[in-house]
C-alpha cells in the first residue's frame, strides 16, 4: 500500500490501482500520514518552507463551508 501511495504521488501508478489508493487515503489515517510525510520530504529536498499539518487541516476545515460554483472563475477578476 505505502509503495503504491509513493507511486501515485509521482503520477506513476497504473490507472486501475488508483481507486483503491484514493479510497485508503480518504479513510485511513496512517495512509494520510504517509501522504503528508512523503510530500513534506519532497518539499524539504527542494528547499521549500516547512508547514505543519495544522495549516492544511485549518484550510480543509474552512473548505467544508465552501461550495463549488460552476459559474465562478478565480482567474477572472470581473466575476469575483
Amino acid at each position, binding site marked *: 500500500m505505502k509503495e503504491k501511495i509513493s*507511486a501515485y*504521488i509521482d*503520477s506513476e501508478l497504473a490507472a486501475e490501482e488508483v481507486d483503491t489508493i484514493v479510497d485508503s487515503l*480518504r479513510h485511513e489515517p496512517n495512509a494520510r500520514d504517509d501522504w503528508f510525510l512523503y510530500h513534506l*520530504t519532497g518539499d524539504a529536498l527542494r528547499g*521549500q518552507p516547512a508547514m505543519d499539518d495544522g495549516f492544511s487541516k485549518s484550510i480543509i476545515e474552512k*473548505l467544508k463551508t465552501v461550495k463549488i460554483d460552476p459559474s*465562478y472563475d*478565480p*482567474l477572472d477578476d470581473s466575476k469575483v
Partner: protein
Amino acid sequence: MDSSDTDIDLDLVRRTKLGDRHTFDMLVVRHQRMLAQVISRYVKSPQQIEDVTQEAFIKAYRGIMSFRGDSKFSTWLYRIGVNAALSFLAAERSRIPLYEPSINPNTNEPIIPQIVDNESPDRLLATQQIGETVSNVLEKLPEELRIAITLREIDGLSYEEIANVMDCPVGTVRSRIFRARESISKVLRPKLEMFRDKRW
C-alpha cells in the same frame, strides 16, 4: 509516466469535480508549501501568508469547474495565488494611510520601523531542522536510493527516465524511490512530534 498511468493532479481534480471534496483536501496537502512560498514573495507576515494561502485554496475549490486542464494544475493554482496576494496588497494599500514616520522626541529623528521577516521563528526552526534531517538521512542512504529520490524530487524525472539513467527496470526505480521516502519518513516522524504542541 506510462500512458496507462494517471496524472495525479488531473485525477484528483476530476474526482473533486465529481463531488468528492476529500480529493481536494489531498491537493491542499500536496501543494500547500509551493503556494505559501509563492505568496510569501508578496506578503510579509506569517499570519498574512497563511490567510492569503487559505483564500487562494478557497478560490480554487470554488472555481474548480473553470479548470479545463489546459495548463498544469500547479500552474493554475500558482496564478490564483499570485492574484490573491496582489489583491491582498491592493486592499492593504487602500486601508493604510501614506506612511509618515514617527519622530523620536529625544533625538528629533524619524523612527525607522523594523522590516518584518515573512517566516515565523517556529517555522524557520522547523524548516531548518526538517531540512537538516532530510539531508542527513539522504547522505546515509545507499547510493542507488539517494540517486533515485534525487532524480525524482529535485530533477523531476519520470520513472522511465530514471530507469534509463540508472540502467535498471522501472519497477526497481519505483521500489528505490519508495524505500528512500520511507527511510526519510521514519526519521522525520519523531522530529515532527517535537513541534506537535505548536503551529509552525
